[in-house]
């Protein structure tokens, strides 16, 4: 039996610069738990991802706001507390009740803020985890982190199927492949169904709505709901702030994708469908809103999916537009020109 060689002998191949591919001995000396648990509030140098940057940017601006809010909350609570005490001393019951109500309100507010922050940090963690999985050399255990992070219960059938599919000799890439198949693929299918359904519904609603103002409201409401549901599908719960950041990022991403892509997605569609001949303007608006909404949904899905889509698997709008077209045509025929 040979002695195990010293670890330095194995550090030669390509990945010198990465800290991940140390031989297993290296993990023995340190405590493994601290290595894998991503620090929830240390974005110093890990912020090179697009999503991460987008999420981190407002941090500085908000710090003042946050201090102000926390300060006034603290002062308010203190003042109300003092008021309750005084009311009790002087038997001034009404002002006492008011003050008590004030303390309660402050408590609710604090809880809300706390929850928001937690959800925001979860979104950020999600982004970071995704980032880590994107390069091939993710450390062992990242996938388990991800499963935990996605809030999959111990008896989740997909998770169980994944665990059952694994063998002890599988490496990270192979485990990732299986994770995609067993855990993500069902969610991808569900997401696609959701996007298709919601965007066709949006199209139909817009097509029959009588006012432009109502259209806009409709669009906003439906799309936010769609994003929410997509997020929940991939194991994220969105609060106000996190929803806002996500929406903003999705939108900026869509804008960044550029006019050419939009032209490809929509233009070709509009041309091939010979809209001018066949559709009333209302129905055309409906179709446009539906397509936009579908695009938004797909973008969101792409951003939320913990492992990036492989090129050939990425869902495309062409999968959805046929159904959209049927929907709109139906409503178009129902409506007199």
């Amino acid at each position, binding site marked *: 039996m*040979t002695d*195990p060689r010293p670890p330095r002998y*194995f550090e030669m191949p390509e990945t010198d610069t990465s800290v991940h591919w140390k031989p297993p001995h290296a993990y023995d000396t340190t405590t493994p738990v601290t290595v894998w648990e991503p620090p929830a509030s240390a974005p110093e140098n890990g912020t090179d991802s697009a999503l991460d940057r987008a999420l981190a940017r407002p941090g500085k601006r908000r710090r003042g706001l946050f201090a102000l809010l926390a300060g006034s909350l603290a002062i308010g609570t203190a003042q109300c507390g003092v008021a309750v005490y005084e009311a009790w001393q002087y038997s001034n019951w009404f002002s006492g009740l008011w003050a008590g109500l004030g303390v309660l309100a402050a408590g609710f507010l604090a809880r809300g803020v706390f929850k928001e922050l937690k959800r925001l940090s979860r979104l950020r963690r999600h982004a970071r985890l995704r980032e880590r999985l994107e390069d091939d050399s993710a450390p062992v255990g990242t996938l388990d982190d991800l499963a935990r992070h996605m809030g999959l219960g111990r008896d989740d059938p997909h998770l169980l199927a994944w665990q059952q599919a694994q063998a002890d000799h599988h*490496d990270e890439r192979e485990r990732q492949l*299986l994770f995609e198949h067993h855990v993500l693929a069902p969610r991808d299918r569900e997401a696609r169904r959701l996007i298709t359904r919601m965007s066709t519904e949006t199209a139909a609603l817009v097509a029959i709505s009588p006012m432009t103002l109502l259209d806009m409201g409709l669009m906003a409401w439906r799309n936010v709901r769609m994003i929410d549901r997509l997020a929940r599908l991939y194991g994220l719960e969105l609060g106000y702030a996190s929803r806002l950041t996500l929406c903003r990022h999705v939108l900026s991403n869509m804008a960044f994708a550029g006019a050419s892509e939009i032209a490809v997605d929509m233009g070709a569609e509009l041309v091939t469908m010979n809209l001018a001949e066949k559709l009333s303007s209302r129905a055309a608006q409906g179709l446009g809103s539906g397509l936009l909404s579908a695009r938004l949904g797909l973008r969101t899905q792409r951003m939320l999916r913990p492992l990036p889509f492989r090129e050939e698997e990425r869902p495309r709008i062409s999968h959805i537009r046929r159904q959209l077209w049927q929907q709109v045509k139906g409503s178009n025929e129902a409506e007199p020109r």
Partner: protein
Amino acid sequence: MAWTLPKHLRDVLERGLDRQVRLAVTGLSRAGKTAFLTSLINQLRHAGLDAQLELVSAVREHRLLGAQRVDQPDLSIPRFPYDEAMASLQASPAAWPTPTRGMSELRLAIKYRTRRASRHLTGEEATLTLDLIDYPGEWLLDLPMLQQDFHDWSGTMASLMTPERRAFMSTWLEKASAHTPDSVVEEQTLAELAAHYTDGLHQARRDGGFYFIQPGRFLLPGELRDAPVLQFYPLVQLEGWSREALDALPADSLYQTLKARFEHYKRHVITPFYKSYFQRFDRQVVLVDVLTALNSGPAVFNELRYTMNALMQSFNYGRNGLFSRLFTPRIDRLAIAATKADHVTPDQHDALQTLLSTLMSQPLQDMRYANIPARAFALASIRATTVKKLENVTPNALALSGRTLEDQEVLLFPGDVPSTLPDETFWARQGFSFTPFHPARHTSGALPHIRMDALLDWLLGDKWL
């Protein structure tokens, strides 16, 4: 799918539709070809049932329906002894399949549900025919000889005479040096010299573990035993003789006699073998027993690299269009695999795979240049060990539990695999000794394996889409 084509028309279509694959299982002797084929057939027959094939996408999608042996195209050669191999694995005590002595062939019909758009026309159920052949690894090494004449071959053999190898061939070297190329040697003496040469080859293979053993039929002559065509040897001491002078020698001189037999051997032994079995492949898996080569030391390890380089020149690589698929198929995708990965702990598989890529870097470069997709794997066709975690020794240390060939239950850490070629000083200091294992007795279900599924998906995944 209310309307589908009638059956006979469908068969014609399938031939054109790329549903026939001939897989080249390439490996030197003891590389693990027979074990690989046995496992491959076993896994495919159990696909979708109890085989552990999670990494095959068609299995994950529940599209692979199973496989059956069907009549092979060439009825004159024996069937691959799958049942015998399984019987020896199921016997008590279990044993590895016996070393291969001759050619055998097997055809598998793999049923699957297709995902292609053409399914609406041809029906959803499709069949992929997979042709497999098995042969003694010794014979494979004859293929590079086809590209050489006697003079070149003698030169190659002379250059391979390292001191380690010389030790095994000493009797022959001594006796052969008594005869100059222009001398006339009696038939009887020639036969004796050839016998000494053959003995030397046997020893170098068996005791030294050397790979580049030519001619391969000398080790496994079959029905050619004692025929004059197997009574020749290379002339390794040709210093002072120019090629012209040698060619001008009379026909009964030693050089000309050996040369004539060499040419005869090429024409009547190697060429038919090559033509009938090694020309029409679509896919290839190259099995390399890296671990045993590491055990044998630097001279053997370097020779393994040289041998694999020489071997890979003997196959046709290129893209297959419809035309070439029907008439002159070429290998358009290949996998190279380090076999017996169950001899080391799973955390060493990466290193094993990297080492294999380094060992095969020249062929891999050529593949890349020819734009042939190739990938390296660390593989165990039939897994003989189980992995254990040693809790109270050092946290997370891994060890293997299995039975050695001496029939002892062991729990051992087999040693690290280097991911690059070790240098001289390391060989002098330490070296390797990976322990071979007895197969675990197989009772029912599919054979345990390591990464057969990944390899299958890579080799055939696009064929059963």
